[in-house]
């Protein structure tokens, strides 16, 4: 009998870097069971994809399932159409765990060669790659020192280099900038951005500004469930809202005048800076009438625009919507 493929199975055959269907992780049994990841459907396309969420949201658990360190409770996941956790899937990925631990007595070069050999490279190739990566990550002069003597930033570099040594197709990085100083953080972000030009990257973080700097696409997770997943542009578009900001030298007077207009739905003064916030009924009419309002009140216009929305604002808004923020 020919087994007919379900629609979601067919979808997995498309070249998603990571694909999951109702991926679930439950720790414990019966009464003490805790659902850390709640049947999530991931669709990670080539490029650099951010995985955002507060601490304890389920990012690390999801990533550990994808690399085969944790068993999947139910559902399924694939890495470039290979079942997650299999040797074939692991051959395609390079993984940097959160707070990676190394063999401190090994030198950086020895560690990379060891990881390269485990990744399937022969000795010559592993040595060559190790040296190339040491050069790329600016640790060539320190490659013969024991890793135990490395700084936090150098350890992160060795970790990423070890993940890249066998030339994977996809890099999975779990909080790669955690515990780094601002300079080390900026350095790692630059490297990840550069690497993502040739290798797909799935990177988790709870630091929003970092994800915003690095990623084209973002998946937000909270309490084990995906709350949003799209391109950063689309997400911003979606959350950009319909609120205009107006700033003049006579904000209170103009506010009173705007309150009487039929094309205005709501308007108020922002507490922090005293600017006028306007939600229009008819945005075109608002833009058309605004010069007239300024002239009528004999005011000086400082600015009139839709304020730029940051990932931080969206993040907060998403969690407010989900009732997380108290």
């Amino acid at each position, binding site marked *: 009998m020919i087994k007919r493929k379900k629609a979601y199975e067919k979808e997995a055959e498309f070249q998603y870097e990571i694909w999951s269907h109702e991926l679930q992780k439950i720790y414990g049994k019966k009464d003490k069971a805790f659902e850390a990841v709640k049947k999530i459907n991931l669709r990670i396309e080539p490029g650099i994809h951010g995985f955002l969420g507060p601490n304890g949201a389920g990012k*690390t*658990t999801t990533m*550990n399932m994808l*690399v*085969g*360190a*944790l*068993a999947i409770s139910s559902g399924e996941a694939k890495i470039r159409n290979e079942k997650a956790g299999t*040797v*074939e899937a*692991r*051959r395609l*990925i390079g*993984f940097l*765990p*959160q*707070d*990676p*631990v*190394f*063999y401190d007595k090994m030198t950086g070069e020895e560690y990379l060669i*060891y*990881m390269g*050999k*485990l*990744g*399937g*490279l*022969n000795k010559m*190739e592993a040595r060559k*790659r190790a040296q*190339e*990566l040491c050069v*790329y990550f600016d640790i060539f002069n320190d490659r013969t020192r024991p890793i135990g003597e490395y700084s936090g930033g150098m350890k992160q570099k060795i*970790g990423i280099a*070890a993940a*890249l040594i*066998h*030339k994977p197709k996809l890099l999975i990085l779990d909080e790669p900038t955690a515990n780094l100083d601002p300079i080390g953080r900026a350095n790692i972000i630059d490297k990840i951005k*550069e*690497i993502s*030009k*040739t*290798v797909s990257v799935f990177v988790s973080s709870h630091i929003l500004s970092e994800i915003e700097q690095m990623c084209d696409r973002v998946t937000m997770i909270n309490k084990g469930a995906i709350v949003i997943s799209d391109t950063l542009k689309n997400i911003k578009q979606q959350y950009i809202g319909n609120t205009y900001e107006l700033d003049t030298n006579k904000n209170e007077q103009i506010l009173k005048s705007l309150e009487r207009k039929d094309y205005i739905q709501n308007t108020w003064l922002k507490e922090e800076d005293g600017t006028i916030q306007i939600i229009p009924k008819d945005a075109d009419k608002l833009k058309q009438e605004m010069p007239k309002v300024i002239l009528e009140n004999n005011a000086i216009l400082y600015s009139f625009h839709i304020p730029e929305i940051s990932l931080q604002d969206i993040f907060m808004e998403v969690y407010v919507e989900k009732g997380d923020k108290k």
Partner: protein
Amino acid sequence: MSIAKLKTVFSRKDTEGVEKETHRNTLILVKKTFQELASLKKFLVSLIIMLIPLIVTIAFPSTIEYESISPQHAAAAISIAIVFILFFWTLGISFICIIGTSGASLISEEVHSGTMLILVSKPIMRVKIFIGKYIGLFLYGATLSFVAIFSIGWIAVLRYSANIIHFFGIIPFLFVTYLYSLVLLLIFCSITLALSSIVNRPRNAGLIVIFLVIFSFLGMMILKMFLADSYETYYLYIIDLGYHLGNIYVGFLDFFNAIPPVAEWQTWFAQFTGVYDIASPTDPDQGINPGGMKRTDYVYPWVSLLVWIGIAVFLLIYGLISLKKREISV
């Protein structure tokens, strides 16, 4: 860096550079485990621990005049002088404790510290990680026991007769002892690694092995003294690891005819392991046991050997399955 340059560094064709998983992956882990265990300092400390009691023992003067007896007799006398301490201390308490404490950390320490998380994300089966560590530990133990056994033989020859011919004479005995040490390794590498993949804390796995050794070599010996009747009546020898190991060693010595069957060394095995019957008949005129002491033969040596190899294989499989199913996270 230009994208073209980056591509040469990071991207690859599907088949380029990376090979399918082969046995070479296991060999890499074997080598790493062996190198990790066999640091010069650790190796020398282990060797000294294994040798010290024997050096102390052979420091006592011998009544035999080695120059006046044949090389065969001299080699036999040297073998008799060292056989029990080799069994009880060198390959017994100290060797098993060294293997136990070295092997206990091999998996549990990697899981506990977090290095295992990186290891399991690499394209290598967990079974191969386990086998690689098992073989690495086995090779370390095999090297250590080889050096220890042959050093003891050499030291004993130097102490007693200082005649190199006598050393050649005891080589068959040393080889049989080495063969026994390999069986011992097979059993205790399995026990240790199974514990290492089941128990969370590395220290606990080591402590369990040490407890097992102390219970087998000292605990059961004391029990035998106080409960001599119950030992046979309640078949306590079945759970007496010391008895089984003694039985296997003596079985090897008998099978290969590596040492003369005389009461001089058999008495020690009778008292400590119960392999020989202490109440063996003695020739009243000569005060010796002609043809050696009578074996208790609670179980045949090959039964002890097969049962413990069976237990070793079972534990090996159990350890493998435990590691395969183990959830690895920091």
